């Protein structure tokens, strides 16, 4: 968490590289792979089978060729029989390798699907503060790009490594059988390639991590700027942002290249070490032959096996890059999964039931960072059914109060009680469900208008939804849409203004039967005439509920039971409209400002 935060804040081009733990990334991948032990075992079996077949193939063709003894001496019967066996064998082998490849891909897809879902599920449990400090683009990059890298690597590299292992072990055994002395040569070259690879991966690993991170940062920038394209165009800022993107793009491309550059040495170098070992084997083999310790035939078959032996090692060295980037990606994915979730509800957390709606805030101190308090010694008491209005200049801490009521954040000191229970003693779910809330920043999601309104009520009927929409004065707008209630909205939708979104969310809140209601500038973008028209519906919505209203348009809160004037995190004044007007204090001057 701390590390990630740093990345985000340090941001563009100044990030610090941290030591990474490849074992943790491997453990993480294994935790997914191990769920499919049986299927993997089956894949291993298929690999063994098809590799064995690969060894039988030359044998069969050899037998067929043996039957072709020379001019006029061809044993057609034997040759054709083996040819037929070969044909059958090739069909079986093709079927096996197709099966293996399908199996691996299906295992991989199962893993990837689970991994994506896990990351997403995890996102849903993270505290709100996580999203306040992490770029959406970077989070998306982890779920799409990084998981995709893992996907590619698992579906091809794992099979290759399995197959290579089989071949390597097999050839090694054969070589030991032929000449244990010559194998001693390998005792120099194998550790040499091993140590070299280990050293190189140590060098390249951070580069691959950096590559993933830079791509994530680029995604963050892209997400931010493409989303703000209209604003940028509005200031004719395209050239500037194109230039900035150019820089970030260069940094990302260079990080990509840096990893590739170092990685490009591994394959050829391991290859070279193998070739050198071949040289040594040939030379020593020749010497042994000259000294009469070996026959020429066994020297040449030893050489053949050692070539077979080094082939897969070369290939393995070539896919090290892919494995490295998969590990770097796994690490980034794993980091989301190991973020601190919203602290769990306490053990015997109480399920808030039959809510009455008595809310009490007692001596609360709170700040988003400990050194800067937003709310100071803040207390208020709202009895069931009362209407509390919170007013004050912007930045006074009004929205923060909501964050605390809903328990998106916990207070630094002091307590908040609902029906006598402290917030922390309640399950978050039951606490949050007991509030209905309409926020300044409205949110609609990609779905039909019906789904958007019925969002908080699982089995809402069309009648209920229409009734709520009518009450919120948004019904006729909806009927103007091409598909009526089935019109699909998008987050960046154009046909819907902010005011209309607010009306939609009001309709949404109407369907939720909660005892407490929070209206944070719920109608700030709704015109006053419409607001008047929905007045009676709003009253019905508020009736019998404990209401917290934040509004700048003071006409909407004149009838509040208590008005609290907040400034700089402290309560300045409290009382009813008439009391506060008579006082001629802060409230009065706010009110008078309306006609300035």
């Amino acid at each position, binding site marked *: 968490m701390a590390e990630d935060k740093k990345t985000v804040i340090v941001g563009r081009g100044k990030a610090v590289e941290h030591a990474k733990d490849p074992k943790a990334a491997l453990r993480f991948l294994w935790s997914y792979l191990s769920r499919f032990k049986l299927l993997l075992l089956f894949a291993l079996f298929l690999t063994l089978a098809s590799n064995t077949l690969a060894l039988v193939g030359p044998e069969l063709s050899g037998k067929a060729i043996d039957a072709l003894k020379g001019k006029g001496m061809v044993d057609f019967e034997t040759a054709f029989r083996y040819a037929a066996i070969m044909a059958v064998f*090739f069909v079986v082998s093709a079927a096996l390798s197709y099966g293996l490849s399908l199996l691996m891909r299906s295992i991989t897809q199962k893993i990837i*699907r689970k991994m994506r879902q896990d990351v997403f599920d995890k996102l849903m449990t993270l505290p709100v503060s996580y999203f306040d400090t992490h770029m959406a683009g970077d989070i998306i990059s982890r779920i799409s790009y990084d998981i995709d890298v893992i996907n590619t690597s698992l579906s091809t590299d794992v099979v290759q490594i399995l197959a290579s292992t089989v071949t390597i072990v097999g050839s090694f055994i054969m070589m030991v059988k032929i000449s244990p002395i010559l194998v001693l040569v390998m005792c120099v070259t194998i550790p040499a390639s091993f140590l070299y690879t280990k050293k190189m991966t140590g060098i390249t690993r951070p580069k691959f991590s950096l590559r993933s991170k830079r791509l994530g940062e680029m995604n963050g920038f892209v997400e931010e700027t493409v989303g703000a*394209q209209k604003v940028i165009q509005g200031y004719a800022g395209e050239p500037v942002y*194109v230039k900035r993107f150019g820089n970030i793009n260069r940094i990302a491309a260079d990080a990509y290249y840096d990893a590739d550059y170092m990685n490009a040495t591994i394959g050829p170098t391991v290859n070279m070490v193998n*070739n050198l070992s071949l040289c040594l084997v040939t030379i020593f083999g020749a010497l042994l032959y000259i000294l009469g310790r070996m026959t020429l035939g066994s020297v040449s078959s030893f050489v053949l096996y050692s070539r077979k032996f080094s082939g897969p090692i070369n290939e393995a060295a070539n896919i090290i890059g892919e494995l490295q980037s998969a590990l770097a990606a796994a690490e980034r994915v794993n980091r989301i999964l190991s973020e601190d979730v919203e602290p769990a509800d306490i053990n015997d957390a109480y399920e808030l039931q039959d809510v009455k709606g008595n809310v009490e805030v007692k001596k609360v101190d709170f700040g988003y960072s400990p050194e800067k308090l937003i709310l100071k010694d803040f207390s208020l008491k709202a009895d069931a059914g009362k209407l509390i209005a919170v007013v004050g200049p912007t*930045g006074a801490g009004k929205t923060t109060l909501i964050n605390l009521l809903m328990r998106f954040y916990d207070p630094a000191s002091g307590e908040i009680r609902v029906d006598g229970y402290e917030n922390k003693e309640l399950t978050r779910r039951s606490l949050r469900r007991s509030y209905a809330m309409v926020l300044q*920043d409205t949110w609609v999601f990609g779905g039909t208008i019906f789904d958007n309104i019925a969002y908080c009520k699982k089995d809402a009927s069309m009648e209920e939804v229409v009734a709520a929409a009518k009450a919120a004065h948004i019904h006729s707008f909806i009927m103007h849409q091409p598909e009526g209630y089935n019109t699909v909205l998008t987050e960046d939708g154009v046909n819907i203004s902010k005011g209309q979104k607010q009306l939609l969310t009001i309709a949404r809140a109407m369907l939720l039967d909660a005892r407490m209601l929070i209206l944070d500038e719920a109608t700030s*973008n709704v015109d006053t005439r419409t607001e008047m028209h929905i007045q009676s519906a709003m009253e019905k919505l508020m009736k019998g509920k404990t209401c917290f209203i934040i509004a700048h348009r003071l006409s909407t809160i004149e009838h509040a039971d208590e008005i609290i004037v907040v400034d700089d995190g402290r309560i300045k004044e409290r009382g009813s409209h008439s009391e506060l007007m008579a006082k001629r204090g802060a409230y009065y001057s706010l009110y008078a400002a309306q006609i300035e």
Partner: protein
Amino acid sequence: MSRALKYLLFYKKRLISGYTVKILGTVVELFIPWIMAKILDEVVPAVKASGNYVPLIFWGGLMVLVALLARFMNMFANRRAAWTSKEAIKTLRDDLFEKIMSLSGKQTDSFGIPSLVSRLTSDVYNIHGFFNIIQRIGVRAPLIIAGGLVISATLDPVLTLTLVATLPFVFIIVFTISRKGVPLYTAVQSSVDEMVRVIREDISGVRVIKALSKEDYEKERFEGANSATVKNELRAAGVMAASGPFISLSLNLGLVLVIIVGAFRINSGASLPGVIVAFLTYFTMILNAVITVNRIFVDYSKASASAARVWDVMDSESDLKITPTADGSKASDHLIEFRNVSFTYGDQKDLSDEKLVLKNISFTVDKNESLGIIGATGSGKSTILSLLMRYYDTTCGDIFVEGRNIKEYEPGELRSKFGAAFQNDVIFADTVEENISFGRDLSHEEVEKASKAAQAYDFIMGKEGGFEHEASIKGGDFSGGQKQRLFIARALAGKPEILILDDSSSALDYKTDAKVRKAISSEYSDSVLISVAQRISSVMKMDKIIVLDDGKMIGCGKHEELMENCDVYKEIAQSQLGSLA
């Protein structure tokens, strides 16, 4: 795809040098088995006979040398390949980003932001992967195939022809499968778009989701998108996975054919058994190379699907055409004029009353005049601004700024006249200073002056670092009203000719709002102010106020006039000002 390749071909010289070294490296490496055979077959028996070790040392040393040489050549070629592909991709990405930045409102809407983002990222990654692979193995494998075929032809032309006869099948398989792959991978990419969309939405709506405890519902929603992606990926993979085994199968069956034909030829004395054995060795080489080529084709389908998506964007011609008039004469005497403007977001030919968002709007604004626009939610207020700044073109009618039709302006030229604070404005994760100066060449004094006028100076200085304070993502560390004041400061800082405030004070308390308006009229009196608002107090002092209702202009004039003759305006005023009106 061919157009993506052009980006790579831009680095022709480096490509050629890279390829040349790669070919040389491949050839050099092939010398190793040759030298080995030479040592075992000729040198060693000779050494044993003569006792002279010099030839053994010579050939052994040569082998070591060749191994070293091969390493450096391959390394060089691989690095060069990595370099050219990253440079090509960088340029491609720059061009795509520039294009995306220039898309019109309508085009952006039709692609959708999540899809644009994934085209710029994951689709380009796919192309990058392909660029890498064709450089690394794209030349080596065909070389081996060609070489293998030539050598086998010298061994026995008839048998080689038998083998070649199977090649058409191989090519048919490769081509059909890779062609089939393109639409399958296109489907994969669009389901990824959908998945990205859900993630984006839920990140921005996390408060609402948590408030309503809808986490489980969202998980299910994501699961739907996730499953669709997996399904599409499996479908693509299932088809693509078939090509490798099928190719080996047809080549291997070709081999069976070779043995059968070989049997007859040997029997008739046209060929020798040893030739067939040698033939088998080369056959294995060719088979491996063909399978490698096949891998390139799999990557090709993927990259090709992605390239098509990238060029969908690249090719979308600007629908906001610049059409200069021949004489350049003044078409309007006003600073701003709307002449019979109607507009619909939908089908531009459907002019039915229901679809029109703006209906026959005409008004003018002169220099030293200010304009207020008021009206019900959804009455078309913001649309007027979108048309004025030419995010969209009018469906009917014309708009003039400084006497010229806005269609005659270069986009940058028109928009640089404006400073606008929008409803859906954005704070970037950058310094406050940068958020206000916004890439324009503004001095700190101008930024400071604007922030003072927007009543933002005090809270900016209250943040750690002041103007150098790094705003958190989407301005999460500022309240709604503070963000709005930053937007206003941003709009003011460039001293625009026309200042647009689109309901930018909805989250401000009235006192602050009044201070902002006062400061603007005294400090930025040269700017013509256009203000869209819900609050009557934000517009009542304007020189001209337009009242909109359902896309129609139902009133235009000063506050006092409208109080007299516009019922809707009067109703709004009374509802807000109460007894004070």
